[in-house]
């Protein structure tokens, strides 16, 4: 394989600078000692990080987001296991259409989903409730959970299951003792990817979150709409830091490109 020339490397440097610039500036401005937005030149200060503690609305929203993401991802994974086994192992009428339906939240604009849920939940009396938020997030993260569980179910060696059956194991025992442990890595990474997607979701959630159930990204978005001050940069810097740790861990354990690349292939199929 030939190497990149100097021109290619210069381009690469500029490209990486473009990708990192907005993320880096948020983290720098967050350390400003001033009362207004500025780039700290002489000294760095933690004053705006300390200020977060005085704004319970951000802390509450953070915990709302964590619970919402953990719960909806877990339920989505739970729903996706039997569906993934059906898609991976059986050839049945309506298989393609069903797969398309399950992946549709990737294609339907989240603003449309937000509107649809707002109307739907208001009609059935779940408007602004945490239950409504969980239901909507399950659906939105479902494609990510399904894709990863599916890829581990497809790659699984079925000879072990057949061996267990021939030795007299019941279906339930085969699932619990053989199938489940084998697809566990897919389940775990599916949950992690679903968690991040739920945690970051803003477009749909902004329609259906009530003041008591607001999530962190929605709170940040509404805050920025009013005005941008150093407080929201320090909150963002925290979010960036936490996500980056999560990201590097996920990359080490599972491989980021393996986690993300499936998308295009799945849609092409």
């Amino acid at each position: 394989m030939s190497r990149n020339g100097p021109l290619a490397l210069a381009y690469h440097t500029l490209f990486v600078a473009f990708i990192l610039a907005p993320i880096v500036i948020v983290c720098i401005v967050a350390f400003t000692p001033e009362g207004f937005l500025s780039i700290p030149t002489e000294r760095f200060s933690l004053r705006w990080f300390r200020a977060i503690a005085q704004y319970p609305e951000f802390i509450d929203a953070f915990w709302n987001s964590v619970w919402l993401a953990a719960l909806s991802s877990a339920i989505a994974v739970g729903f996706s296991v039997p569906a993934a086994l059906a898609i991976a192992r059986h050839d049945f009428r309506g298989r393609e259409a069903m797969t398309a339906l399950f992946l549709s939240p990737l294609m339907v604009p989240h603003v449309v989903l937000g509107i649809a849920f707002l109307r739907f939940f208001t009609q059935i009396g779940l408007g602004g409730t945490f239950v409504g938020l969980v239901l909507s997030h399950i659906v939105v993260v479902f494609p990510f959970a399904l894709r990863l569980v599916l890829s581990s179910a497809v790659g699984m060696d079925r000879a072990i299951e057949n061996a267990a059956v021939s030795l007299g194991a019941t279906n339930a025992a085969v699932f619990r003792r053989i199938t489940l442990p084998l697809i566990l890595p897919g389940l775990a990474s599916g949950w992690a990817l679903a968690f991040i997607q739920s945690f970051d979701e803003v477009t749909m959630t902004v329609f259906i979150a009530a003041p008591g159930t607001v999530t962190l990204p929605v709170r940040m978005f509404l805050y920025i709409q009013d005005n941008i001050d150093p407080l929201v940069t320090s909150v963002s810097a925290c979010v960036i830091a936490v996500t980056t740790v999560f990201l590097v861990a996920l990359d080490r354990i599972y491989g980021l490109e393996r986690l993300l690349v499936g998308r295009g292939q799945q849609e092409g199929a």
Partner: protein
Amino acid sequence: MSAPGGARSAQAAARPYLLSAPALLLFTGVVLIPIAMTVILSFHDWGQYKGIEPVFILKNWREVIEDGYFHEMFLRTLRISVLVTLVAAVFGAPEAYILNRMRNPWKGIFLLVILGPLLISVVARTLGWALLFGGETGVINKALLNMGVIQAPIPFMFTETGVVIALSHVLMPFMVLSVWAGLQRLDPQVENAALSLGASPVTVLRRIVLPQVMPGILSGAIIVFALAASAFATPAIIGGRRLKVAATLAYDEFLNTLNWPLGAAVATLLLVALVVIIVGCNRLVERRYAQVFQ
């Protein structure tokens, strides 16, 4: 599992349906029904004092299709999406190619750096652009002024230029990912063969590399276009209240004006337009590059 006997085989045939039943029920209840309700809502009437009236009229659709205000807004959405798709393709595809030619560990590191932002909050990334664009921290204008490239600061905030730049950044990883995934399926020896047979690097790029990465670029373009056309947080923050696109307009109708039926019509039109464009483009790409997708 394929035991003989009618009862067993009927049971086996029902099995995939039983397995997928929970998820199917969930999607029927929480996706299909709400979307159907939104489509129906778009035909209802609305008044400042009477609220939503469940009648069947075409008023909202007529307004969305005939009113110049909505034309301008949908045209702006289309213009921004096309520009973002072009920027992502023109700048993202070469980067994917360069990335693919790197050695480990650099390849892994930069892949993480470029794809990682995909998982970082859109609000935080857009806030970064708001900081780079305007006010005391407007680094871009300061740098350009200092270098003497421009005489007066370029207005980025509340302009389409700003929205296009920020949105290109937000969606760029999807393009790099798509082209990069396409490159993984290629045999690097084809390039070397062409070079050893005396082709110039430019010819290799044009005749060998470009046709091979084209499917990746096109499928990336479909994803970027669809996400740009329905983007919400970035145009809302960078574009502000006056520079509206389809998603922010629907938001305003729903949560500020409270004219839900009209907002539902805007959303339905966005959904239908996107599905038509995506399915149409997918067909086109698949037919043109049928052999590559095998």
